[in-house]
């Protein structure tokens, strides 16, 4: 194990010039420390980033809210900017872990760790968030939706990291919002099913529907087929059997120690129904 604590961004990039697939970043450490203790990560190069100012903080930049990758959940929950612009996002994060964990866990770590159960991701997906990904020589902006490539894998190269998360300032404007995280208790729980949704209705038809799920696939994802099916329909025009069928195509729930696939699937069906009916 090799630990590095760069003094600034320059120092950070100096340490990241070469590609190294054993390179990890230590932000809040709430995922990686567990993985180190379990022996999942060993002989790795670990770069501490939590203290880097350039990666921290919440700002309004033109039409976007930009959240530094090492901003922790508590900071987001307490942020005035978020409260004014993205109240649904803020409210929904209250169910994240516990107050203690919230003070360590970072938004960037949640995304980069790539767990199917990451709470922040379904929310960011329906808010059409983008990621600013940087290396020593390059900055690229990509849609969060295109970030993951499989179970705990993503498009980042090992000489890159997430600098910030960019959310359109008006992402929630005019939408009815919905967020439900289902787990085995109310706090400190890992989600079995998560559904985030935005909808707006005009002349009793759904003009826009955005749906994203967590814990039901290899990574959280949007339910585009269902969104498409629902758009421009009114509630009575919706054939819920069709929704169930499409959901079946879009999710691949599993049975594990924590829950059963049939349960996860049916809960997701119920949540979508409630979201549309409410």
């Amino acid at each position, binding site marked *: 194990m090799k630990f590095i604590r760069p003094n600034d961004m320059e120092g950070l990039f100096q340490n990241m010039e070469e590609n190294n697939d054993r390179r990890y970043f230590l932000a809040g450490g709430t995922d990686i420390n567990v993985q180190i203790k379990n022996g999942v990560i060993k002989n790795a190069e670990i770069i501490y980033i939590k203290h880097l100012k350039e990666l921290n903080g919440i700002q309004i930049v033109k039409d976007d809210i930009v959240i530094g990758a090492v901003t922790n959940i508590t900071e987001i929950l307490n942020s005035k900017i978020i409260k004014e612009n993205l109240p649904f996002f803020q409210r929904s994060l209250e169910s994240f872990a516990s107050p203690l964990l919230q003070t360590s866990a970072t938004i960037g770590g949640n995304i980069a760790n790539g767990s199917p159960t990451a709470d922040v991701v379904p929310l960011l997906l329906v808010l059409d968030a983008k990621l600013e990904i940087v290396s020593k020589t390059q900055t690229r902006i990509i849609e969060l939706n295109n970030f993951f490539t499989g179970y705990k894998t993503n498009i980042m190269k090992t000489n890159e990291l997430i600098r910030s998360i960019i959310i359109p300032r008006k992402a929630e404007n005019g939408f009815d919002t919905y967020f*439900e995280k289902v787990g085995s*208790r109310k*706090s400190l729980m890992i989600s079995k099913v998560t559904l985030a949704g935005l909808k707006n209705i005009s002349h009793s038809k759904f003009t826009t529907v955005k749906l994203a799920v967590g814990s039901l696939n290899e990574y959280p994802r949007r339910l585009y087929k269902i969104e498409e099916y629902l758009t421009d329909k009114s509630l009575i025009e919706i054939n819920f059997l069709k929704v169930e069928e499409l959901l079946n195509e879009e999710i691949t729930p599993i049975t594990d120690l924590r829950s059963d696939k049939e349960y996860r699937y049916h809960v997701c069906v*119920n949540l979508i129904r409630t979201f549309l009916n409410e």
Partner: protein
Amino acid sequence: MKSIRKIDAIPKLNGSWKFLDDYSYEEMIHGQLLYSTCHHGTIKKIHFPDGYNLSEFTVVSAANIPGENIVPEPVCDQPYMADKEVFHFGQVIMGIAHPNRKLLREFIRKIKIEYEELPAIIDIKECLENEDNVFGKELIIDHRTGRKPDPNWIHHHKIYYTPHQEQAYLEPQGMIAVWQPKEKIMFVRATCQCPFFVKEGVETIMGSAIKEAVIETSEGIGGAFGGKEDFPSLLAGITSLLSYKSGKPVKIVLEREDDIQITTKRHPARIEIETWTDPETRKIMKIYIDYRLDAGAYQTLSPVVLARGVLHAISGYSIPDAYIRGRLFRSNTPSNGAFRGFGAPQAFAAMEAHVESIAADMNINPYKFRRKNIFRIGNEFPTTQPILENNLSDCLERVIEKSNYLQKLEEFKEWNKTHKDKKGIGISIGYHGGGYTGNGEKVLNSEVKVVIEKDATVKIYVANTDMGQGAHTTLAQMFFEAIDHPREKCLVQLPNTSKTPNSGPTVASRTIYIIGNLLRRFALKIKDELGFENLDDYVSSNQNEFPREFRMKFVQDPSVVFDEENYVGVAYKDYSWAACVTEIYFHADTYQIELTKSWNVIDIGKVVNQKIAVGQAEGGILQGLAYGLCEFFYKAGYGRMHGFSDYALPTTMDLPEIDVEFIHTDSPIAKGLGEIPMDFPAPSVRNAFHNATGIFIDEYPLVPERIFKSLTADERR
């Protein structure tokens, strides 16, 4: 009733109170257990990993035991360490120690053991359904009248299942052994409930290699709930052996995952009940109960759990014709052990569901049906022990009244008609016999000691440990309140087997009930003997008499006579009684039950310290509710949970409003409180769910996946 603050409250807040892992000794090294990952098999070969200097490690196995390789228990059948054959996952094979804790952990993780696998039973149902797995002695309570059921009596026949439960003490199991070769004394610092059990455990494994084992507990014991009743004997034995072999102090603190996987849990149960109820009188006339426990691979203390199980199996109902059988079943899983309630929560899980289902079938209000059948003066237990008070019925009446149960039944029924989500309300009752079962307290022959110093400080020596339940505060309080002595001058000493007489283990709701009441009588006896009004004054005017030591033994009431062969007689002198009403909210989308409010009325007799008593009650009630609701430990095909992210202990966010009221507190005697809060609440959740949805679920916990399955099974029918 005075709410005196716990002696450990402030030091725990400021962090100065020492738990086991806070202790260190010069040259101390660290130990860990190497345990079997095979459920049943013979050990063919053990491969140590390359790249380590083996001479730095101390290794002990069955072959190194100077004494006996059998842990002392009510049934002595479990070895400290497996010899050639392992009988369950988690069975200890070796103790290994090294100065570096981290390196040790890495080393142990890399050890490979080759087994020849043998057939194993790991699934709870597979164990409990097959009568070939029965082992140990069957217990029978036979209170049959020989009368044939009338043809119009209504027959109900059901099977109920309860799962494992993890004690989830905050501080994991831990032990430090310090071998003192000159004196041939093995000193052991333990986080445990029963220092004298640990002493016997160490002396058994060490045999004549040592002169004596001296056990002292850590200052703080971070919870136990029964989990630190017998496992510490095994752990102390192996830690001592490591210290003996290495010549150094050795500390073992279990990793949480190991603690969850290998230590004792609550016994899973299968309880089959048949009843015959007279539709006219609405009285249960006859009952047959088949009470089965999955003991794990060894019997250890399971026969005692079984005893309490059958003695509480009928719940609080007077049934003229009863036959109860209790049996232990063997599986290839770690031995199950003590857990707050000790067989009683399983009993109430079944019987309190059963009466609910009879009431539903016969279309009788569940409260009214209970009231018809509940114990009253003049009734008797199936062991023929007479019921001498109506306190159980008083608890029920009070809880029904305060919860507004009857009105809420109607309200919820209306509300449910128009809502997808459902509200429900459920009742349960329970009781717990205080102290050891039957003649146990006579056999224990507990003794306490008091030393009065020259400054009139009273030092109390008892073997009972304070594991956060406040025992040392309350025990001292019972002494100083009796003689009106200042509280600062009356302190329970840290249990140490070389200084403390054996006042028995800290189990069986006996600490306040047996030892506390004994201390109260003791204080009055000393006062009487010395003839003082004020102890301070007496000591200052009779300085030459002090320091002075006093001892007193517990004498069992002669009315307690129990025939252990035939299960006839007085099983417990005093019972604590309780009744509960719980309200739930059922979320239709997610199949989740949310607890909204729980009312609890408990009779523990005199309440010594109101705040501590309420704290104990609230904690136990939540533990009980969670047993019924969410604490899912083993999943067929997937095994045991690994840690607290999988094992769903409730958090404070899940806590419903819990209302606790003690009644009959003017009693002169303080009865057992330790276990009863855990015994009775769980069935109220199931019964409330039935009230909300009309669905009975015959198995705990009522996790949403189970509810989903039973709802969809209902739709398919």
